């Protein structure tokens, strides 16, 4: 797995582009470029193993723990939704 320096929480504008790059280049092997509002769970994009890798990437990159009850369709359907989730977590103090 690629190791990246944890991104500072306040740089929330970066969340989307970091996620876009990881999903497009690593999870999809460059097969397609995902957009922030693409449905990641529709079948063509990420499978269940890919979703586990994405959650691990989010935890490592943004230095927070995503509890199981938060790994839901609501929070992970799109890059925008993940971003909103991260913003919510960070404003309530991540860790």
């Amino acid at each position, binding site marked *: 797995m690629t190791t990246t320096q944890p991104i500072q929480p306040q740089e929330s504008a970066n969340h989307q582009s970091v996620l876009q790059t990881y999903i497009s280049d690593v999870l999809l*092997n460059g*097969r397609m470029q995902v957009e922030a509002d693409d449905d990641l*769970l*529709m*079948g063509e994009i990420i*499978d269940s193993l890919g979703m586990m890798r994405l959650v691990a990437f989010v935890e490592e990159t943004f230095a927070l723990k995503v509890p199981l*009850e*938060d*790994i*839901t369709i609501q929070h992970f359907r799109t890059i925008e939704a993940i971003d909103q989730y991260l913003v919510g977590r960070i404003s309530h103090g991540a860790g």
Partner: protein
Amino acid sequence: MMYLLSHILDRSAEQFSEREAFRCEGKRLTYGELLQQANGLAHTLIDLGVQRGDRVGIYLSKSLESAVAIYGIWKAGAAYVPLDPSAPLARTAYTLDHCGIRHLITQKSKRMRMADLLTAAPKLSCIIGLPESFTLPRPVQRRDWSNILPSDTSPPVRVMEQDLAYIMYTSGSTGTPKGIMHTHRSGLNYARMAAHTYGLTHTDRLGNHSPLHFDMSTLDYFSGPLVGATTVIIPEAYTKMPASLSQLAQDEALTIWYSVPFALIQLLLRGVLDERDLRSLRWVLFGGEPYPAKYMYGLMERLPQARFSNVYGPAEINQCSYYHVPPLTDGRAVAAEVAPIGQIWANAEERVVDDQDQLVASGEVGELLVRTPTMMNGYWQRPDLNERVFYRTEVAHQTAVFYRTGDLVQQLPDGNYQFVGRKDRQIKTRGYRIELDEVEATLVGHPQVEEAAAYGVPLAGGSQQIEAAVILKPDGGLDEAELKRQVAERLPAYAVPERVAIAPSFPRTTSGKIDRRTLQTQAIARLQAAAESREPSTI
């Protein structure tokens, strides 16, 4: 009267007109509504030129339209061919062409893909389910869902029980998928036997976890409606999110669950079951690959009211055996690493044979041959394969036809069979069958690849991942990412190797063959070392 799969709906609509037949994301279809919509679709298909025995493709996300499509296609006298919407374009185009599909049923969300498919599959001449306003690359007949009017009258029956009802494509060892043909007779026999074996009734609520192109879905689409039960179609998104999936199982009060073990392992590990009430679940059916005992017993502890059964049978025969796992009692030791595949079910005959097709002694390992009224007709337009997989022998002066499962089994002292491995190089990952020969053929199909070896590597949480190694032709400047990207254009995502090592040479056996076992052993060691160096998972 019931001798066709479509009669299932006719009868249930008569008996249970107001009951919910299918549900999906808050939308519902009663049996009465489903019958009217299936009739309407059948009339439309016939108007558009569908003939008896035609193959009609289904290219849909999991939705209520799937149920309308299946029953509508049958009522038009055709067979349905479920296509995986996430499969690469080239693979879908191959299936459409090989099966001679002219009519395809789809939905608006697939419109971008439809344009590509029309270019890649020249036999396709009619699209059902796309708005007229959407521009396509060439002129075809088309009808939108909104133009298909419900009808109280069923078209006249034009098929018999030996006519084809559906064809499911699965991995083939030569690099192209093969189509498993089932008739109304084999499908209906399966629907009845499964409903009987698991005691399904009209009060049951089945969770449809499997996609339509996966043979496990037939329990949800055939057996559920046979008894007037409600089938809850679980959208793809939920199958990837265990916490959302367990919430859906609770909200929908599911009583019957049927999936691959992988989904159940995810539910146990990540489904926050402590916060869910799943007491309505009365029977958990699993199959498709081995379910490690520690995860199975782990889930049984969480769902003490539910029965657990291992369901066995390649798609070619639907199902042929089951094993009801004994209830957990305190202090009970785990008997085996994985549950047996059980006893062969009613109306079927099994033989366990050696390489010369001679019966092995009881308790010896051999290949399982089965004949059952739920068996396929053969592979679509593949007489060569049919010759290989059917074993014919004389019984009481008549020819008995057995299917060679390719599975090696051993009978236990209590009469149950235990799966011990494969005779060929087929592996299972999350229930999907993958012929390693097909993966290798696809890799070697790349102009810069000289030789390829693919192998399965077992993973800690059950299941396994595919890895491969290749030797490039001299001057081949290919890298791993590029090769994987190109392979992904031909193979479904679950069959694309997780890792493709570009190697200068391969380990060889004394006869010069690629020593895949050594490559596999090296991969297992590498994964173990990686797991040990990682910090203990907090999940």
